[in-house]
């Protein structure tokens, strides 16, 4: 493998944290990669030269030790299982058909560790910059720049007159004119069906019960209320209903006495 292209110097504070890492500063760690990185660094080698096998062993040893003392977070255990698998894969003879290969897994892990290490380093360098309020200072009480808003109200003569029109309208005595809408009420339809059901003896289509002079909206209303009326009569056991299928014509006839409705 190639040399790591960049040498990452550790910030002194990070280094100090690392010394006792494997011991017990467990709560300062964020998760498995974090821990791995710490372990990786303790080997004092370039990440790409790390023996993944050794890393795995140290990590598993650490987890085993920790389990007795601490409630180990679930993601640590997932990582432990993954590493155990990786370890066995590295120890066993290679199966060329296996995908992905342990080498590839190890490579992927190393790439991730490198990237995290780079960001750790970047964070340390960022925090060490000359920061406002710590190293450089601003004016404590600047005069400030102020925008003074001059409120200007806007309305047109039309707004004014239509507003007055609405006031007048609201306070004038109001006469309501309700226009009649062409409807057949449920009561009317019930009455009508009850009358006709005695006359027609055989199955007849619902539409046949409607007066032929009902046209347009009135006819639509009549169909609707007659349908509801037919359901009501069927519920009362006074008519039988029959339909071949959905949206087929609905037939009805007077129920035979003594029979339960269908």
């Amino acid at each position, binding site marked *: 493998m190639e040399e790591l292209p960049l040498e990452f110097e550790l910030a002194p504070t990070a280094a100090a944290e690392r010394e006792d890492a494997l011991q017990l500063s467990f709560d300062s760690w964020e998760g498995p990669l974090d821990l791995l990185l710490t372990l990786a660094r303790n080997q004092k080698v370039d990440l790409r030269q790390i023996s993944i096998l050794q890393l795995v062993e140290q990590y598993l040893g650490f987890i085993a030790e920790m389990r007795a003392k601490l409630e180990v977070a679930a993601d640590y255990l997932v990582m432990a299982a993954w590493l155990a698998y990786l370890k066995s894969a590295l120890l066993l003879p290679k199966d060329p058909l296996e995908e992905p290969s342990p080498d590839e897994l190890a490579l992927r892990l190393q790439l991730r560790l490198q990237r995290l290490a780079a960001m750790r380093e970047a964070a340390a360098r960022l925090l060490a910059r000359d920061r406002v309020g710590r190293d450089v*200072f*601003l*004016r*404590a*009480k600047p*005069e*400030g*720049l*102020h*925008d*003074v*808003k*001059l*409120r*200007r*109200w*806007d*309305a*047109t*003569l039309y*707004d*004014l*007159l*239509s*507003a*007055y*029109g*609405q*006031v*007048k*309208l*609201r*306070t004038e005595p109001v006469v309501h004119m309700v226009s009649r809408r062409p409807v057949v009420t449920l009561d009317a339809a019930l009455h009508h069906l009850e009358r006709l059901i005695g006359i027609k003896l055989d199955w007849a289509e619902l539409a046949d019960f409607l007066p032929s002079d009902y046209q347009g909206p009135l006819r639509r209303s009549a169909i609707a209320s007659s349908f509801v009326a037919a359901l009501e009569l069927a519920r009362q056991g006074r008519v039988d209903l029959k339909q071949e299928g959905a949206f087929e014509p609905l037939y009805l006839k007077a129920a035979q006495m003594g029979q339960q409705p269908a």
Partner: protein
Amino acid sequence: MIDDLERAIEAMLFASDEPLDSRQVAGRLGDEMTPGEVRAIIVRIAERHDGSGIELVERGGHWHFQTPADLAHLLRRERDDPRKLSRAAAEVLAIVAYHEPVSRAEIEAIRGVQTSKGTLDVLMEAEWIAPAGRREVPGRPLIYKTTDAFLQHFGLTSRKDLPGIEDLRAAGLLDPVDLAFEEAIGELDLVKDGEEA
């Protein structure tokens, strides 16, 4: 080249959250200088800024940076903030215009709803209405009238230019709003039908 001591004192005065006197500055520098020496340096700093957009001034022996008074106008910017008059305010304004002088209770009686104080305030802020004395009835309520600014804004020569009730009716302004709306929709439908034909 500005020496380090002068730089340090300048930075101190700049970053301080309150004006400092030369004794305080000397104290922060570690008391290696007398207040008199510090003061000489502060005066030098003030002179260096003389005529710039920043000035170092002394008030009762304490020094602080500020922007020169003659530039204060640059720090304030006035901007128009146009706002549409609310429906309620338009109604109140119209009532004042048609019935003036009129008290708040009378406005409420005509509108048929309570009128918040804020609505009248808005109209007074716009300078479209103004108090016009008090009505000589129990309680002596304030009465309001419209102003010249009102006539000017709405392009009226005098209050007599306001259309009468019959004019309003003829213009359709006394039709219920939803009816007028339906008519407008009807016209739209006609237009559509026409296009399709």
